[in-house]
């Protein structure tokens, strides 16, 4: 299992990383505390989460219809809509728009879909420079790393590391590890790019079908710059981001901001409905919306797995995940890490490629407990474990059955055989308890950090009989 080996290597690497153990872990603690403080009333929170789940589930239940409506309303508003089934299609759409405008520089706001597309790499191959304008993303671009968190992409980096990085890349700017100074430096560099770029790109948090509005949530103002300063704005997003009505936005926005960073609302909230109209002083002349499928319609087909698509990308599940807190985002080897990544990414890429992710969870349920749209993440992890090992070829998940090994299947068959025959089971337990002194005290990885469990002298079955507890 090539992929397993790779995953384990990345995990070992992450566990050996002192940075993750200390600052990353405390950053997660901070985010958890902020979320908690943002929802002081548990009952109100439950009502709101229920509402959020309902809105998202409702949108998904009429996805086709809503996407059509979105397209029509966008057209009416002057937004050009493009459909992309695969990543290549989406990349080519962006490239064509760039070429039509003879643009060789793209200024980008934060967009996980563009990460999914590996857009920067693609455009650079075609001689187009991409500049990330979200501070975290910009830092990562300088470092040549992918994001490790969907909301705070550079959260794995310390202030000092960032200062070093700036110093290396911009030796002319005096060294500073002061956050404000660093931010100001980045802003000055980026400001020039905003004015130079003919095209700006952004993601979309919610696309409202009834009005053809694209909502963008951000804290730095770079999103607003990307979508208003360059003459052309391209928004890329997944087809699942559509919601039916404008009135659905306030509850979702509230859930998103509070779950993500504990903010009541972000510093910027953009609602983009049309390009610049005659007589208006600002805004782009052209807006394009690229709607990417990339496996989402396949996920959509399954009544249970469809809940994956409810996600509003708040990141709360990763902030609360004890596994993510220890291995960080990069170890997952997927665009989106953490619990949501572990269900979403293997479904998109295939269980043959990312099939380890669903197993890398204790199913502790901390993620589902906080998910603002009630995605039953542990249940879906369990489901994907099944899809990965089933041998009836009856499911539709990509890479199905790829993780089934003769040995593992044999173990579970034997286990099932013993545990479904009470007499045999009692006999087996009788023998094990009687031979307990002879059993090995080292049992694989378990005893690398633990003593072997102590097998009892007699089973509970025996004790119950001895103490006179009835069988019926």
């Amino acid at each position: 299992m090539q992929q397993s080996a790779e995953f384990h290597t990345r995990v070992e690497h992450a566990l050996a990383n002192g940075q993750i153990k200390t600052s990353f872990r405390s950053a997660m603690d901070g985010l958890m505390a902020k979320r908690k403080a943002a929802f002081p009333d548990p009952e109100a929170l439950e009502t709101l989460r229920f509402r959020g789940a309902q809105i998202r589930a409702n949108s998904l239940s009429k996805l086709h219809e809503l996407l059509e409506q979105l397209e029509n309303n966008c057209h009416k508003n002057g937004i050009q809509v493009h459909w992309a089934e695969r990543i290549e299609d989406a990349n080519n759409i962006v490239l064509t728009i760039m070429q039509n405008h003879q643009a060789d520089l793209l200024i980008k706001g934060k967009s996980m879909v563009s990460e999914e597309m590996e857009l920067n790499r693609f455009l650079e191959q075609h001689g187009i420079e991409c500049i990330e304008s979200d501070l975290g993303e910009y830092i990562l671009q300088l470092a040549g790393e992918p994001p490790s968190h969907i909301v705070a992409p550079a959260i794995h980096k310390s202030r000092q590391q960032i200062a070093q990085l700036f110093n290396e890349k911009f030796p002319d700017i005096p060294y500073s590890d002061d956050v404000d100074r660093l931010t100001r430096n980045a802003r000055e560099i980026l400001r020039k790019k905003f004015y130079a770029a003919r095209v700006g790109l952004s993601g979309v948090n919610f696309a409202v079908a009834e009005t053809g509005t694209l909502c963008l949530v951000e804290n730095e103002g770079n999103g607003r710059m990307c979508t208003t300063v360059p003459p052309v704005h391209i928004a890329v997003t997944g087809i699942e981001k559509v919601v039916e009505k404008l009135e659905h936005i306030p509850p979702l926005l509230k859930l998103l901001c509070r779950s993500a960073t504990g903010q009541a609302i972000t510093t910027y909230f953009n609602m983009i409905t049309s390009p610049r109209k005659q007589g208006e002083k600002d805004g782009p002349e052209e807006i394009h919306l690229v709607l990417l499928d990339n496996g989402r319609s396949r996920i959509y087909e399954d009544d249970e797995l469809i809940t994956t698509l409810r996600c509003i990308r708040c990141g709360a599940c990763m902030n609360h995940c004890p596994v993510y807190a220890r291995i960080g985002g990069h170890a997952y080897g997927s665009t989106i890490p953490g619990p949501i990544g572990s269900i979403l990414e293997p479904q998109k890429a295939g269980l043959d490629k990312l099939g380890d992710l669903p197993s890398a969870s204790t199913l502790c349920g901390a993620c589902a407990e906080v998910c603002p749209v009630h995605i039953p993440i542990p249940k879906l992890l369990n489901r994907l474990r099944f899809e990965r090992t089933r041998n009836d070829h009856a499911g539709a998940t990509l890479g199905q059955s790829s993780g089934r090994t003769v040995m593992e299947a044999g173990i579970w068959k034997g286990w099932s055989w013993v545990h479904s025959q009470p007499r045999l089971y009692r006999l087996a337990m009788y023998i094990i308890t009687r031979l307990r002194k002879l059993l090995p005290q080292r049992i694989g990885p378990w005893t690398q950090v633990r003593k072997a469990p102590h097998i009892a002298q007699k089973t509970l079955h025996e004790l119950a009989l001895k103490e006179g507890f009835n069988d019926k």
Partner: protein
Amino acid sequence: MTEEKRYPEKPEKVYYFGTCLIDLLYPEAGLAGMQLIQREGIEVVFPQDQTCCGQPAWNSGYRVEAIRVAQHQLDCFNEDYPIVVPSGSCAGMMRHHYPEMFKGSTDELRANTLAGRVFELTEFLEHVLKITLEDLGSPVKVALHTSCAARREMGVATEHEALLKQLSNVELLQQSRKEECCGFGGTFAVKHPAISAEMVSEKANAITATGADTLISGDCGCLMNIAGHLEYQEKQIDSRHIASFIWERTHATER
């Protein structure tokens, strides 16, 4: 997961599902749970044909194998008695996952009715038996680790604590990051040993840092994991299943 829970009147008879882990590793805990219920004047039935709830295979993706084992448990608990389980994890499996497991099968109805009768031990003692405990033991400091299934699936974290708080000589200490998973996760510990090791060692450190004499848990999976690590580290700290702990401190001839 947070549906309103309803508890039955105090019954005359209950079924007891001992769990496979207890059967082999912690039978005294299983027995203690039965004795606690019996002491309240209730007949405890322990079907000898019970084996395992099926969770290990279910959580590993081997559903056919899990269902086969679970089906046998359905056969064991036919009468309309409450089923008491001294584990949040196995109780959660039977209460919350059996309905899903047997959905659309001929056993669906049986599985659903069984699920509705399943209670985790501490919630049963607390809400159905409304047990009062008289502490006969000497003063002791304890730390409690509530399993993730007990906390999040069964929602019985407060019941664990409430029972311990009834014991007048027991001081319950609070470890940091109390709500975090201990890193057991069944086959997770075997498939991802490095992550599991990191989690259990942090959990064990948080517990020893409290200065507790005894670690208590309502789930033997967590106990086996954390106590196994404490033992490996040669830490002088006892570990007990909550049923054993309560029974030992409240049973007159024991001390």
